[in-house]
């Protein structure tokens, strides 16, 4: 019963969502919206569970006091609990809550995102080293695309922008659409396996 009940629920809810997507029915639409709302509530409980895991792991690190780990874990727990208390007491729109969010969290996120540029450079260096025909084609295509997208490229040769456009719209788009169709059908097959309970590793266990 431990696996059967969740499987039956997944099947009923999955079929309901599919039918409500394709058919016009106020009753079905209402039922689907209700289930979606339940999903939000379950996700909120899951966040509570995940937060407990986070607190347990970092509390353990603080008590162990190994290296600088305890300091990082302390900072995490302090900011997490502090913001939670502030948010519950004053609300997430309160200026103090907003100040700490905007002053610490937003720049932190932006900083990590900004690092993408450097990661692209190092990945590109490795990918573009000519080791075989594939990487040689990759290097030439990338060089043309780069030249097509910078003003100096057009000054060097007026056809670079047109070549870049062709690369993006013909070989690149053809490959992408092929992958998209394959992934779409693969997603449907994966959904069927989950709905029919054939694939159930997500419930724990071997799954078949």
């Amino acid at each position, binding site marked *: 019963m431990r696996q059967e009940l969740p499987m039956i629920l997944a099947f009923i809810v999955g079929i309901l969502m599919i039918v409500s*997507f*394709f*058919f*016009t*029915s106020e009753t*079905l639409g209402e039922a689907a919206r209700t289930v*979606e709302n339940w*999903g939000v509530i*379950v*996700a909120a409980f*899951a*966040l509570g*569970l*995940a*937060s407990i*895991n*986070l607190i*347990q*792991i970092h509390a*353990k690190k603080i008590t162990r006091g190994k290296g600088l780990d305890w300091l*990082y874990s302390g900072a995490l727990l302090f900011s997490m609990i502090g913001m939670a208390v502030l948010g519950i007491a004053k609300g997430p729109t309160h200026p103090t809550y907003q100040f700490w969010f905007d002053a610490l*969290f937003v720049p*932190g*996120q932006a900083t*990590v*995102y900004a690092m*993408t540029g450097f*990661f*692209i450079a*190092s*990945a*590109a260096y*490795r*990918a573009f080293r000519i080791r075989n025909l594939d990487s040689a084609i990759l290097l030439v295509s990338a060089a043309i695309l780069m030249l097509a997208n910078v003003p100096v490229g057009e000054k060097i040769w007026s056809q670079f922008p047109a070549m870049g456009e062709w690369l993006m719209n013909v070989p690149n788009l053809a490959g*992408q659409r092929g*992958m*998209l*169709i*394959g*992934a779409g*059908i*693969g*997603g*449907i*097959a*994966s*959904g*069927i*396996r*989950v709905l029919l309970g*054939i*694939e159930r*590793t*997500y*419930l*724990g*266990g*071997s*799954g*078949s």
Partner: protein
Amino acid sequence: MTLVKGRVFTFWLLIIVVGCILYSMRRVSKGKEVSIRKIPGLDAIEEAIGRATEMGRPVHYCPGIGGISAVEAPQTFSGLAILNYVARLTARFDVPLIVTIRQPEVFPMAEETVRQAYLEEGRSDAYDPSNIRFLSSQQFAYAAAVFGIMSREKPAANLMFGAFWAEALMLAEVGAEVGAMQITGTAQLSQVPFFVASSDYTLIGEELFAAAAYLSGDSNQIGSIVGQDMAKLIVVFLIVVGVVTRSFGSTFFEELLSK
């Protein structure tokens, strides 16, 4: 109750695709012999975990950063199915497995998947719940936390299967910096090039969805992969029909699609 306008063709196409998949599953489960092509990325997982065992370093696994209720849900389920296989191997080889999670609702599923895998391998004593870690529901906070874990714990294998966005390249590059053997897979088209550039093996698009069936060896599941190929043939046929009819100036097919 009528079909929503604009979704009629999609509905019938879905019925045909589902029919192909169910038919193939039935045929294969009845004993029809089929062979599916090798997926090198999945075959390399054992090698990566073996390498981690020899080096005495952990394995890092991420089932993507997508949830279980949106369009990327099948990728998350595939990520969890591969996690089951990986956890069995790490239990067998006695190598620590660190699973990092971004979505809170995926956390209990990942925890249960790993726990059950260790239990079924008879290694429940080796299961460490503190290695299944929820880090943050915020994308870049999660990414920053994974950077830290990778830098401190230096995994010998970095396995990432599921839905990824802008953090994909960052995580894979940090994995490369710490010398981890990297096997990745995603159906997010914009992230596939980044994974290809920075990983040893990459599962592209549909390979990720086929992974669970491929690893299980279950005839029903393998049948669904055969069904996928049948459905692809139908789509190819529709594309050819579309190209031909449009080339002759007919809008019949476009009208049919928009019904």
